[in-house]
């Protein structure tokens, strides 16, 4: 999904660059000549492609993007697989050259600890407060404070009035 960038002169260059690299409405971009003959390797390549970001596009994987750089990365990826790298080695190879930005699945390291642990932490916190809330709800409203002696006499007077009326 895209919306047009505001075409004012100030961002004209950015727009042009984006338009050049991001051909709108790309087809899933693997071309027949990239497809490898070994189908197991090809499946691995496709799966890995979906986890790699096209770094010059606006939020697409290299599997989805038509940009020339995406194509280069797809070809590079396949070369590494043919050379015998494992999936993790291929990813490391690309991260060494393009940085962590190229990974669509953020790396699990100290600086992303909160990112990965966050949801579980939310669940835990929520679970604890939910438990406490249920317990207080089951206990019901707090009991009213007992009546003072003056209030008790007032109450009895009112009740007597009602009985005699």
């Amino acid at each position, binding site marked *: 999904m895209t*919306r047009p960038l505001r*075409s004012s002169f100030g961002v004209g260059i*950015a727009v042009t660059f984006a338009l050049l690299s991001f051909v709108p409405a790309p087809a899933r971009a693997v071309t*027949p000549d990239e497809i490898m003959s070994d189908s197991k390797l090809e499946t691995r390549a496709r799966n890995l492609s979906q986890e790699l970001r096209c770094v010059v596009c606006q939020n697409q994987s290299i599997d*989805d993007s038509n940009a020339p750089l995406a194509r280069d990365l797809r070809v590079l990826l396949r070369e590494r697989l043919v050379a015998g790298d494992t999936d993790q080695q291929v990813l490391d190879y690309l991260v060494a050259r393009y940085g*962590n*930005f190229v990974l669509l699945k953020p790396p699990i390291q100290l600086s992303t600890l909160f990112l990965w642990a966050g949801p579980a932490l939310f669940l835990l916190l929520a679970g604890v407060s939910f438990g406490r809330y249920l317990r207080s709800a*089951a206990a019901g409203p707090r009991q009213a404070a007992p009546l003072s002696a003056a209030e008790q006499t007032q109450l009895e007077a009112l009740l007597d009035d009602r009985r005699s009326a």
Partner: protein
Amino acid sequence: MMAEAGYYAVILALFISLAQSIVPFATINRRASDAVGFVCQAAIGQFAFVAFAFACLTYAFVTSDFSVEVVAANSHTLKPLLYKISGVWSNHEGSMLLWVLILTLFGAAVALFGGNIPDRLRANVLGVHGLLGFGFLLFIVMTSNPFRRLADPPPDGNGLNPILQDPGLAIHPPFLYLGYVGFSMAFSFSVAALIAGKVDATWARWVRPWVLAAWCFLTIGITLGSAWAYYTLGWGGWWFWDPVENASFMPWLAGTALLHSALVVERRNALVSWTILLGILTFSLSLIGTFLVRSGVLTSVHSFAVDPARGVFILLLLTLSTGGALLLYAIRMQNLRHEALFSPVSRESGLTLNNVLLSIAAATVFLGTFYPLIFEIFTNDKISVGPPYFNRTFVPIMVPLLIIMVVGPMLKWKRDDVLAAFKRLRPAAYACLLAFVAVFAITFGHNAFAAMFMALAAWLVFGSLTALTTRIRLGSARLTTTLTLARNTPRSFYGQIVAHAGMGLVVAGITGMTAWATEKIDMLRPGQSLELSGYEVRLRSVGMAPGPNYDAERGIFDISRGGQPFTQLVSERRFFPVRQQQTTSAGIRTNLVSNLYVVLGDPDANGAWAVRFYYHPFIPLVWIGALLMAFGGFISLSDRRLRVGAPQRSARPLVAIPAE
């Protein structure tokens, strides 16, 4: 002239909104009937002027008045009329005007149709709403004026991005805005309640129709966006966890929680603080979404306007409104604490758990969307958070929620027994088990996940049906009793059944598409064919086919199944000379359960064309299910009980008449 008139109307609306926000709070200690008349008229007036301004802008686009800057930047004489009109909101300035139009529309609706809302509440609500309108009108006047003129009008405009020249996308923003701008009304209600220091069942009764309406429209808006992406972008992708998609999804999650939470306040006068908080947060998430899209802060396929000044303004608006509301919440919530009494197994607890899980889901999406930004600020390095992250974190949170969605409505208020509830759900449990076994068997045990999620889908659909059959006592009472019960069941119950079943279809659709979609890519010359999933796709011919503002290469494909001709599909590669851009139009054949999808790709030097053929099982169910959810919401909205007035204190004192 019209553009100037439009601009003047915006400024008038700005000052009306200022008056609208001051009067209720200046007269807060006087009788509400003094203020409410003025405030209602102000709300209607504000809407009228903004509508006029919007009409002026539309007129400029339709008549191709290129002396207006946004028209020159985004329109063209050759554009078809529909896209000239939708061009009004496909740029930043115009879309902000649409935003404010809908904001004032909801205000006017409360003024016109909220006659049975108590005066003081209505005055306060419209007062807060006026403040929101003031902020956004100020934003338009100061940073995003759509009526700016060019000193040197060009002979023709820049045209519209070809991807946007599509009927589905033309109506996607209005629906989306009706949704997440509509939640501004829930925000106004929440803040008004905090100001008055009173939240009770009647407040929930008044706020619920507005939340429901906004929610339905947001559901439709998101569905339209997804369906459009599917048929336009060329490979059948329908959700990307793109920041701007998340920006509309977070309010949806929070809004769903708000909807259910208000229900508990209305029926049992519990969960009050949560409901108020959700009312504030849902709209805040909408504002954050606006900030995301228009400030250039995050790279996304959607980035609207890259302008720091606008970003700062929206951030300021966001801080003031959300910060102010949350501060008020912190101060006032002590006074509004309600004590509810319910057991750990009851419908209240089910709905509370629903709230909790939806809030966590929204928080997770928020975390994933904003983490790259925070990361970049603190470490000067960039990371990406994409679908692999969300699939691993969002889905595990949704699974227990989907299970509870069926159990919750079957629980009784206040206290119930879990085993008894499950016993009532036996038909659904059988269907669930059956689905699991069937799918597991069909896939030869290869795909346990798919089996599990299909079972979940069956659980949802049959659980909803079971809730209905239990209530109308189908099979356990006489037919006439059943029919009477069916007739007397309130519409909101039917709405719930339809919406929850719709969710089941969505789960089935996602599962089918994720697990069993297949594709084949090949180079074909005219006359050659490829085969996939029992279908044979033959490229018949590729010829030229001009369009209104594009030139196209059209590929015609004959599809046969089992040797018999099945259908013919057309895929085009369109070239738009004005913008020098190319798009691809896919050929799709749907039977509302599965799709065949064919795309014409690049040619090679030898006269062969790249052809991609996809088989997409169950994907239409995603959108049909989502639309069903919205439809269920509309059914609920038509429930008479949402329009009944509040009991008013009678003027005459009651006189006791002794029994004769």
